[in-house]
């Protein structure tokens, strides 16, 4: 049995992957989904996690600095893209910020918000838009604000936007306008076992990639 601590946004894909993995092997997979920061701190406090899957590199770095992950096993598993969204009506196209609120995750704390702020700064829009930004504790809440029409614009991951029929994607932010959005994975220090390695390998397998891809993630090449 292996325990995977993974960012909550990966829940659906990971559950499918775990299910198919369990069908193929005799291993049991437990998924504990929460915020990346929460999970990282729990690992620091000795959580029974075998594999950590973070929504941003920072918390992975934080653990690595403390020697709490097996650095050799760290891989950048997934990428995501940042998009500007609006409610489905009226139909608009392009990087049009309109007027009114812009929903984002916390711009100083939550990865999607941090990336979004960086993108806006790169585009030179941040000073003008800053006062219109409303921040939520996670990107799903920002999505909900747009879906409900409370905020006319939002900046979320493409994976979130794709699955929400009540929003349309206006534009994708240029990949170079913000640091790369990377979901790293690693085996937790001292948890290196054949089973953990098997599952890590499975995460990089074609089957897993297909599932991640269907959810909208861009799959990284296993080049590290």
């Amino acid at each position, binding site marked *: 049995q292996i325990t995977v601590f993974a960012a909550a946004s990966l829940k659906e894909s990971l559950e499918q992957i775990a299910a198919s993995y369990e069908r193929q092997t005799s291993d049991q997979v437990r998924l504990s989904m929460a*915020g990346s*920061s929460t999970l*990282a701190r729990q690992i620091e406090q000795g959580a029974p996690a075998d594999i950590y899957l973070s929504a941003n590199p*920072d*918390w992975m*770095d*934080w653990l690595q600095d403390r020697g709490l992950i097996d650095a050799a096993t760290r891989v950048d598993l997934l990428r995501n893209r940042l998009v500007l969204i609006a409610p489905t009506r009226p139909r608009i196209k392009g990087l049009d910020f309109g007027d009114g*609120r812009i*929903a984002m995750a*916390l711009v*100083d*704390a*939550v990865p999607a918000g941090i990336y979004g702020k960086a993108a806006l700064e790169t585009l030179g829009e941040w000073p003008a838009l800053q006062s219109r*930004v*409303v*921040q*939520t*504790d996670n990107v799903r*809440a920002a999505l*909900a*604000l747009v879906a*409900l*029409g*409370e905020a006319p614009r939002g900046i979320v991951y493409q994976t979130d936007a794709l699955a929400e029929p009540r929003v349309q994607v206006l534009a994708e932010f240029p990949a170079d306008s913000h640091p790369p959005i990377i979901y790293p994975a690693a085996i937790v220090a001292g948890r290196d076992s054949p089973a953990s390695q098997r599952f890590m390998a499975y995460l990089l397998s074609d089957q897993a990639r297909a599932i991640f891809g269907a959810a909208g993630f861009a799959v990284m090449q296993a080049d590290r």
Partner: protein
Amino acid sequence: MSWLGPEEWQAVALSLKVSFWATLVALPLGTLTAYVLARHSFPGKQALNALVHLPLIMPPVVTGYLLLLTFGTRGALGSFLQEWGLVFAFRWTGAALAAGVMAFPLMVRAIRLSIEAVDPKLEQAAATLGASRLWVFVTVTLPLILPGILAGTVLAFAKAMGEFGATITFVSNIPGETRTLPTAIYGFLQVPGGEGAALRLVVISVVIAVGALLLSEFLAHRAARRVAGA
């Protein structure tokens, strides 16, 4: 204090404002609800009772989401109230509403327990002396439930100071408008190395709430001593 930046001070001030108003507005409503639940029986009483407890039962995010659906600009009540100039969405008023809703069950319970402990014979005595129902409440019931009111108020205030999930879901986190202490604390906890700043804010919010607590204890103690007759 130099160890707090202006943004943090803003959050402190806002949290105080939000908690103050949440408590203040909840107080008469909570007292009324508690009175009705304690002393009346009517069809739908248990439904009202359950409704009051809902924010306690549901995860705060859900409460926040429901508030958004109801009191948002597109929400049924929200759009109606907007015409009267009462806007909650993305305003500090919304933060106060969320805090008030979350604190409501605690307040109602405390006050209700106190009302149930008041001897109806005293209220009857007041009635025989010419006091109408309202006057009986004001001159007899209310002073006698002061401990419960104080307890309910301080519970509500403390809860309002700590409320996070429903608030951020409902009104987001806009610096200076809806960025209360708990959302600021949450933000700091999301980034590596933010613990120190978070801790400072936690200390501040604890100091404020404990101050309110001690004040309420002092007042309750005085009231109790007077009734015991010194």
